[in-house]
């Protein structure tokens, strides 16, 4: 007979693609045990359920404490495609929690993860790159990746992959080169980046230019940038639509123009006019980078002569609320008005 209460029977299994999650504290240990199960179907379902659960911080903490990282490391080498895709997805979600990131470094998961860079399955590679990107975004992760020698492999992969994965690889590279640019320089990253600068997708261009900013920090990088004739392309990118691209291009010019050769090449490419135009931009990064680039270029006497006429424009920027812009503007004015 029907009653207004729900029945005593357990509810029907709504989602057959996920393993049923036990209640409370037993959920995660049970799922982790199921991960080792011999049968493939059980493992897949357990991975799908785990994937949904680890979005929650407390669950992620529990999972890591219960030793799921070892199991996931074993599962990374599984033969089934779906298992690998889901495992990389779980690792990607775990990398968004700080405890997960620590666990990544402690259990040395980056190594086996990097072995999956050549995986035939697209979704798996995408997840791998997303996970690597997250790890590279925080400082010790980037240091670890550089020490592991992952940068040359990533540089090689840039030209092979399709669009959205390429953007991920490039942003990973830009994080790594901000730690240490030398391995990237040695693996001819500048050539690769030069090809990406003319790609139609703005995300790729932004990531490529930000990697260039990082590479042009050490002196060798600056020399190489000048040698490879990148400055005319960068000046052209200053008129790009995407503000991120513009900011990064201005940043690269700013870094490269520190050496004399860079200054001369930048002036030859006519960098001053676009930079002056960018000074009045609203975007903080664009404005700051443009001001700094002008500062660096103003060391050259003939540029200084040209810029002396535009000092009033720079003075307007002194009133900007952001302190970075104020400092950059004051430095620029000081350098331009310097007399030997």
């Amino acid at each position, binding site marked *: *007979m029907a009653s207004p209460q729900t029945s005593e029977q357990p509810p029907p299994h709504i989602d057959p693609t996920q393993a049923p999650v036990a209640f409370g504290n037993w959920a995660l240990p049970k799922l982790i045990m199921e991960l080792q199960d011999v049968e493939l179907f059980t493992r897949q379902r357990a991975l799908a359920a785990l994937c949904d659960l680890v*979005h929650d911080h407390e669950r992620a903490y529990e999972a890591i404490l219960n030793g799921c990282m070892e199991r996931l490391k074993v599962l990374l080498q599984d033969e089934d495609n779906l298992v690998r895709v889901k495992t990389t997805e779980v690792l990607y979600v775990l990398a968004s929690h700080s405890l997960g990131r620590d666990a990544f470094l402690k259990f040395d998961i980056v190594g086996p993860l990097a072995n999956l860079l050549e995986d035939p399955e697209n979704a798996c590679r995408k997840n791998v790159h997303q996970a690597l990107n997250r790890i590279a975004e925080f400082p010790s992760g980037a240091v670890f990746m550089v020490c592991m020698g992952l940068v040359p492999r990533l540089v090689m992969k840039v030209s092979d992959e399709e669009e959205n994965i390429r953007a991920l690889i490039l942003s990973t590279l830009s994080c790594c080169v901000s730690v240490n640019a030398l391995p990237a320089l040695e693996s001819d990253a500048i050539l690769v980046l030069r090809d990406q600068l003319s790609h139609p997708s703005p995300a790729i261009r932004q990531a490529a230019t930000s990697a260039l900013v990082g590479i042009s*920090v050490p002196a060798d990088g600056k020399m190489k940038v000048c040698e490879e004739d990148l400055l005319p392309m960068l000046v052209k990118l200053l008129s790009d639509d995407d503000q991120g691209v513009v900011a990064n291009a201005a940043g690269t010019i*700013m870094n490269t123009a520190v050496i004399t050769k860079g200054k001369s090449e930048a002036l030859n490419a006519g960098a001053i006019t676009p930079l002056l135009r960018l000074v009045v931009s609203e975007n903080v990064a664009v404005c*700051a980078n443009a001001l700094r680039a002008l500062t660096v270029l103003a060391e050259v006497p003939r540029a200084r002569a040209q810029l002396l006429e535009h000092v009033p424009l720079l003075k307007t920027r002194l009133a900007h609320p952001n302190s970075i812009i104020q400092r*950059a503007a004051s430095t620029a004015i000081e350098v331009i008005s310097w007399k030997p």
Partner: protein
Amino acid sequence: MASNLQAQHETQSGVYTFSSRPRAVPNRTKYRQTDPLLNEEQSSYGNIMYDRRVVRGNTYAQHILPITSQPDPVEFLKQQEARRRAMSRKRLKEQFGPKTPEPLEGRKNIDLQTEMYLEELSDRIEEVSVECQTDMFLDKPDTPLFIPAKTGRDAATQIEEGELFDFDMEVQPVLQVLVGKTIEQALLEVLEEEELANLRAQQQTFKEIRDAELVEVQRLEERERRLRVEKENRIKQQKAVLEKEKETADKIAARAFAQQYLSDLLPSVYSNLRDCGYFYDPVQRDIETEFLPWLMQEVSNALEQKYVARTVLDMLIQDVTNQRFEAFQVQE
């Protein structure tokens, strides 16, 4: 137990019915309760298997009252009653019953029949034997269907549509769980992304500052280097100029000194040369260098010719002598 009313009655038709509220046999505790449980359901129902009042074993050869059991108080009471009644009846009879006088000595009282007609009193009881026999093996008729008598009141009920199951009400908890879980998961993911976005924004600002500082540092470094190099160049140039000036001054001084030193060098040189014979009379020299050697040469030529001639002559003589000698030798 004894206090419960038991309705026993024979109905008109002679069917025996018995009705009492059905209840389980309560278990008697071993020890008496100080306050007997009133108006309560006896909670301690005993297991019939372990009830001492239930007869165990075969019932056809059993003492009704086994020795160990307590005498049933009801039975005991009844017996007492019966005994008392008998006693009272006896007493009554003694008091109020007609008493015959005692027999005299040598006589005996015997009972006599004083009715009109004498009856034979004997111990033999008249009996009549009656026999009865059922028919052989008649089939037992079917037991009539037991239709218990109707008790209670009739009641009817009908379930209208919509009373049993109201979808809107039933679906509430299910929907709540579904929607709740989905929203919870979505919230978690959105929170995660927001957190990451915040982290990235922080990183971005930090990166900005870092870039600015880096570029400043590099620019200033570069500037310092350039200025230093420039300065060094200038200094070097200046030094070179000074050097050159000094050198020129030295040269001039040296030149002046040299001129002065060499002023009287020339006459002494000339005199030295003349002394060494560097200034000569050309004719004398000519004669000395050419004529006299030529003369000597001619002289030696002439002498040589003479010598040669003499040598040839000597050879001739020698030859002839040798020939003559050989000729003489042959001849001998």
